[in-house]
């Protein structure tokens, strides 16, 4: 099966030279959930932003292809790219507090996209929005449609964002640490919800996180990133059985285990970090010679 999303040799730099993503390769088949893990600053979120075309203005895509459902996004004109992304991809953002426009009612925020971008009739879009709110287990969807974001709790807002992301039946959803801003109980519910929705709609999901526990629960495959370099890209079962890269092994050891919650955690040892950093330097040197 041809992958639904294929990123090859993606290089993103800050300014002229400082590399943020180093020749990233990544594939995602239809219906697949891939975890994208790494420590802060590894460039996980930047991959999602590069796909959606929302990179900060200081960052530039230097080279590489992002093929979404057969269309090379880098080669499309701005207008066409917006259309393709708007129709086929959606984002579940990290912070539910800032991801809803504070001055607009929830209903308008869900339906706007259907009406403005996909040309739905307003009535149909409203019916669909209520259906979606129901699907993400929001009580009294009619009332919530008329509410302003500040009237709802963080967990509710995150569920609304999930509903909004699925509204246009996108084929790809990028979830950028969607549970980081929530407390542990809400986290669990939201994760379950995302998983449930993804299964029901058959969407491909790119799940950006630094929580390996989450990955083991909802992902089929994962990619480990360090300093913008892909260290390992493999199936979840293989990864948890036999992680290949030393850094991956160290990461695993730094994750609490449900089977043995009292076991002490090992921070990623310095030699491993140094070796990984050397690997990144080696990679840069090799690139410079090509």
């Amino acid at each position, binding site marked *: 099966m041809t992958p639904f999303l294929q990123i090859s040799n993606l290089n993103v730099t800050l300014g002229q030279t400082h590399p943020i993503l180093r020749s990233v390769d990544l594939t995602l088949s239809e219906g697949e959930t891939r975890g994208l893990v790494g420590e802060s600053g590894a460039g996980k979120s930047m991959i999602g932003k590069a796909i*959606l*075309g*929302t990179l900060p*203005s200081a960052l530039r895509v230097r080279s590489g292809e992002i093929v979404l459902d057969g269309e090379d996004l880098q080669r499309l004109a701005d207008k066409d790219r*917006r*259309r393709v*992304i*708007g*129709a086929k*991809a*959606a*984002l579940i*953002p*990290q*912070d539910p507090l*800032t*991801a*809803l*426009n*504070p*001055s*607009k009612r929830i209903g308008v*925020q869900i339906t*706007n*996209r259907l009406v*403005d*971008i996909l040309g739905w009739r307003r009535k149909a879009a409203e019916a669909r929005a209520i259906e979606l709110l129901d699907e993400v287990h929001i009580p009294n969807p009619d009332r919530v449609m008329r509410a*302003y974001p*500040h009237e709802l709790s963080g967990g509710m807002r995150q569920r609304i*964002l999930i509903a*909004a992301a699925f509204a*246009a039946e996108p084929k790809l959803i990028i979830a950028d640490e969607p549970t980081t801003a929530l407390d542990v109980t809400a986290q669990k519910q939201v994760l379950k919800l995302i998983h449930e929705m993804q299964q029901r709609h058959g969407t491909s999901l790119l799940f950006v996180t630094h929580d390996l526990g989450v990955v083991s629960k909802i992902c089929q495959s994962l990619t480990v990133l360090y300093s913008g370099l892909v260290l390992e890209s493999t199936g979840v079962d293989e990864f948890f059985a036999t992680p290949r890269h030393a850094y991956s092994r160290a990461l695993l050891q730094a994750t609490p285990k449900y089977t043995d919650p009292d076991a002490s955690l090992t921070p990623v040892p310095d030699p491993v970090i140094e070796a990984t950093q050397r690997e990144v330097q080696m990679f840069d040197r090799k690139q410079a010679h090509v």
Partner: protein
Amino acid sequence: MVDGRSLVTRKMGARLWLSGGWLVLLALAALFAPWISPQDPLAQDIFASRLPPFWQSGAEPGFPLGTDSLGRDVLSRMIHGARVALGVALIAGTLTCLVGASLGLIAGYFRGWPDLVISRFIDIWMAFPPVLFSILLIAVLGTGLTSIIIAIVVIDWTRFARVIRAEAIGQGAMDYVVSAQVAGRKRFDTMIREVLPNVLPTIVVLLTLEMGIAVIIEAILSFVNLSISTDQPTWGGMISEGRISIHQAWWVLIFPLVSLFLTVLSFSQLGEGLKDRFDPVLR
């Protein structure tokens, strides 16, 4: 909780009503000035000069707030002066707001080179002392209502641009802007439909503040005799004339000063009250 909220609402309501009431009164006075003023504001009468207001001995009926040193009726001149004050407040305030807020929004939302250009202009503008700048402008443009309005817009647009730029930068960093972009909205569209509604409360507050400031600037220019022609009474002009005879006839100075003060205060309070009404979080 219910009590606290209703108390807050009531307090805000009083502020809104008092300031709105004064401004409505002023607007009515300005609209119907020729019909409601007891005297011709320009009619001089040397024999009735410096008549005191009605509660003091020596006052004459028909001149409730007294007369100035040329025998002109203070109340009638104040009523006619309200026309200039309000006209300048509304027109100059709105124009300044449109120019400044648009530039600020564009600079803050798009960043990059538009921001660079606009921000440098703001920096340069703010280095000019405003009063001298306005006097210089009037000297070049000539006196008259239009010149005053142009001068106020040219001087004061930075007030809007600076604040709205900062607000737009903050709003632009919010995830909802990114989400709108991912959903396929054009950048300009996003600015108008997503960001603008969120900076609107600030724009309203600034607009009403600016209206107050416009009244003051007009008064200052009148005070230095650079406003409109002397056959149109203005509060600033009255204050300027009253200053000379402050020891003999305090009322010529004090009454226009008080209405100037009340008007500026009302505009700023109106803005605060409206903001509370507009803001979905406070509402």
